[in-house]
């Protein structure tokens, strides 16, 4: 069935951010009254494309056609005027205002704002759309699910005929997801078109009619739900039939050096981010943790660094129970860390030499005074060894990302830790620096350290890991050998469509 007129048509849309090609000649169309999924991994360009449609970004080239008319969308105001509404991952609500005030905000309505009339209008409209909200509630008192409902309602209140939802289920508990899907189906039956951004296959299959897959900024194809399977989608999303990466020089592996057992960790809001997570890493192997961002990787990194205290479970390093150890105790026990955000791993205003000494100051202290000569000598040695392009006296914030990461590697690895925890170690680095960092990690494996690699870059996971553990919603849903990994299986695991029954394959 080809609709006479598309609700939205995006033609050859291209958007660059510096050197990054976020959208590359993307074509996308939306039929009236359909729920259309935009599926892809992190960084595939889904959100960028939709932010262009909503006027938050401007495309470098390409055109947008709304209801058959070429449209020029320079701001959300233009988008709203064309009947397009968007609910972003970060809600655009003002917490100190009421629901009514939030919904009325930006609505032309003369000078005077009559709270009673506005409230009545909001209440009537909510009843008409069948959306349960309390117009008088302060937004800051609402749950995440309720806030999302307000956001959806806000778009409908502005006569949206096209609703863009950016990963709407990422913040919801399962029951709220069900309510959301019911609401969407009902609104769809009343003629609303929905663009549903997601990387979760099961959800896409549950609620959408058509699916457009983006990969690396390009459209990998559009399929009808009835004519596809989760397997096919996973393959389109990840983009490779097989990876065929077998580690050369695979070693006989030794004792488990890092053991995580039933780790339960709460995030900042007090919600469980890790729900009984277990794995171990042996001497001489790289265990890759693969997964879509936001599934607990950050909390896992922090828990292993000793900065986030687990509520339950165990953390053992070389047999010693270090569950409640402080960061410095962990470092002393032989854990080397490469933090997720390298700028948090260094003190920008201090020099390279000072940063290199920072994690084990006791080694550079004599009689309570810093031994500047030893600090400098240490820095000179590491700068030469790790090819850091900097002088010991350079302030570290002046370094490029690659050199800063080398400095962090030098600090973490120079003490030959028995366990190395590397979180997103090559994020944002150029090719040369990436290769250098990866090579260093493999060196650690080869000298017998247990290396835990937490990365959202699947290629990186596949290039380095001996075993791959997939994390989904705070749990390890499967562990497989690198040789057994293929796109389909990883895609299914990463998107929660499948869970390996026995949990762990050794």
């Amino acid at each position, binding site marked *: 069935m080809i609709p006479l007129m598309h609700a939205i048509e995006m033609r050859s849309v291209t958007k660059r951010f510096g050197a990054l090609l976020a959208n590359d000649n993307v074509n996308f169309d939306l039929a009236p009254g359909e729920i259309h999924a935009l599926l892809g991994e992190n960084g595939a360009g889904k959100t960028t494309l939709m932010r262009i449609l909503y006027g*938050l970004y401007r495309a470098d080239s390409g055109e947008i056609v709304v209801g058959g008319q070429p449209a020029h969308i320079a701001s*959300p105001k233009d988008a709203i005027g064309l009947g397009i509404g968007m609910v972003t991952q970060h809600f*655009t609500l*003002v917490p*100190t205002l009421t629901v009514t*005030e*939030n919904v009325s905000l*930006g609505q032309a309505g003369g000078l005077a704002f009559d709270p009673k009339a506005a409230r009545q209008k909001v209440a009537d409209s909510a009843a008409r759309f069948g959306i349960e909200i309390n117009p008088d509630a302060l937004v800051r008192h609402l749950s995440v699910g309720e806030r999302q409902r307000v956001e959806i309602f806000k778009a409908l209140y502005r006569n949206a005929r096209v609703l863009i939802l950016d990963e709407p289920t990422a913040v919801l508990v399962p029951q709220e997801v069900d309510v959301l899907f019911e609401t969407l189906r009902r609104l769809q039956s009343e003629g609303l078109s929905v663009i549903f951004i997601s990387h979760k296959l099961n959800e896409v299959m549950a609620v959408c009619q058509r699916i457009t897959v983006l990969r690396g900024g390009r459209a990998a194809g559009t399929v009808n739900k009835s004519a596809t399977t989760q397997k096919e989608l996973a393959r389109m999303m990840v983009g490779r039939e097989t990876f065929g990466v077998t580690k050369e020089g695979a070693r006989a592996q030794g004792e488990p050096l890092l053991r995580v057992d039933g780790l339960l960790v709460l995030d900042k809001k007090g919600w469980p981010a890790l729900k009984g997570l277990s794995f171990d890493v042996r001497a001489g192997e790289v265990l890759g943790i693969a997964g879509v961002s936001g599934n607990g990787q950050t909390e896992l990194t922090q828990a292993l660094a000793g900065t986030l205290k687990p509520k339950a479970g165990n953390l053992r390093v070389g047999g010693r129970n270090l569950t409640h150890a402080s960061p410095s105790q962990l470092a002393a026990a032989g854990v080397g860390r490469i933090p997720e955000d390298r700028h948090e791993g260094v003190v920008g205003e201090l020099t390279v030499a000072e940063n290199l000494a920072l994690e084990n100051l006791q080694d550079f202290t004599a009689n309570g005074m810093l031994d500047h000569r030893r600090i400098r000598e240490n820095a000179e040695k590491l700068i030469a060894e790790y090819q850091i392009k900097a002088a010991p006296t350079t302030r570290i914030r002046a370094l490029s990302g690659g050199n800063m990461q080398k400095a962090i590697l030098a600090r973490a690895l120079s003490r030959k830790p028995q366990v190395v925890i590397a979180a997103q170690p090559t994020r944002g680095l150029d090719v040369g620096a990436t290769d250098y960092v990866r090579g260093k990690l493999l060196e650690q494996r080869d000298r017998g350290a247990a290396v835990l690699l937490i990365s959202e870059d699947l290629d990186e996971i596949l290039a380095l890991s001996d075993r791959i553990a997939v994390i989904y919603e705070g749990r390890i849903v499967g562990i497989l050998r690198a040789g057994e990994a293929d796109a389909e299986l990883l895609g299914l695991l990463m998107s929660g469509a499948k869970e390996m029954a026995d949990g762990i394959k050794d």
Partner: protein
Amino acid sequence: MDIFLIGLIAATLRVATPLILGTLGELFCERAGILNLGIEGIMFFGAFVGFVVAGASGSLWLGVLAAILAGALAGLLMAFLAVQLGVNQHVSGLGITLLLTGFSLFSFRLVFGEPRVPPSIDPFSRLSPLGETPILGPIFEQYALTYIALAIVPLVWWALYRTSFGLQIRAVGENPEAADAAGVSVYRVRYAALMIGSGLMGAAGAFLSLAQLGAFTYGIIAGRGWVCIALIIFGNWEPIKVLWGALLFGGVFALQLRLQTSGLQLPYEVFLALPYLVTIAALTVAGRNASYPAALLKPYKRE
């Protein structure tokens, strides 16, 4: 009621007038997310421009109008720096205070040279709506600008809470991303809030030179702008509460003036410091629950 108390109340309202105007002006800026530390300089500029224009034209009201326009112009400059360019608000605000103080002093010398006594003007006379009525008569004997300042308080409340523009100001000061996504122009709202607010600051300065003093002196503002910044925190960014803060400070100020002449054997500097000490004390109590506009000090850039 004795003469002392009646005089005190009347003086409180007089002293509080520029504080009310200045604080409401600052309130507009801060509720939109901009800390306007230009206030001290803008009040000084307003006092100067009002004085010169009134002197040249012979119309005090024309002077007030000119001071408001001068303030709005300064607000425009602040908006260009802090909103358009995203300059740090502490730096841009203090810069404007330094610039306008220096500019006013420079212009003063150009116009008046270096007079031995400060140039003066026939100031506004007080209205006396209740005439010789006991008690209320003297209390209500106030400048028209004092009545206007008091009337502006509910007006500002109405503007903030009962107009679309006010809703936009509050939204922009709390979550500019949300306002932007709702189709509100964050820049336009902040420009407008800064110009209106700074206009009120200009009027506050003009009150000092054209009503209270009838003269222009170098120390005419004497830190009142900074007091306004503190009163905002004391009043928790609410127009009505801010009024109480201004009246409290005005009251203590008026009281110390009277204590100075009461014959107490203390250096007069002790009395002069009293209102500021009370401000600090009140702030330590009230400031603990301060709920700053969430976007205060944060420049907004899309993307």
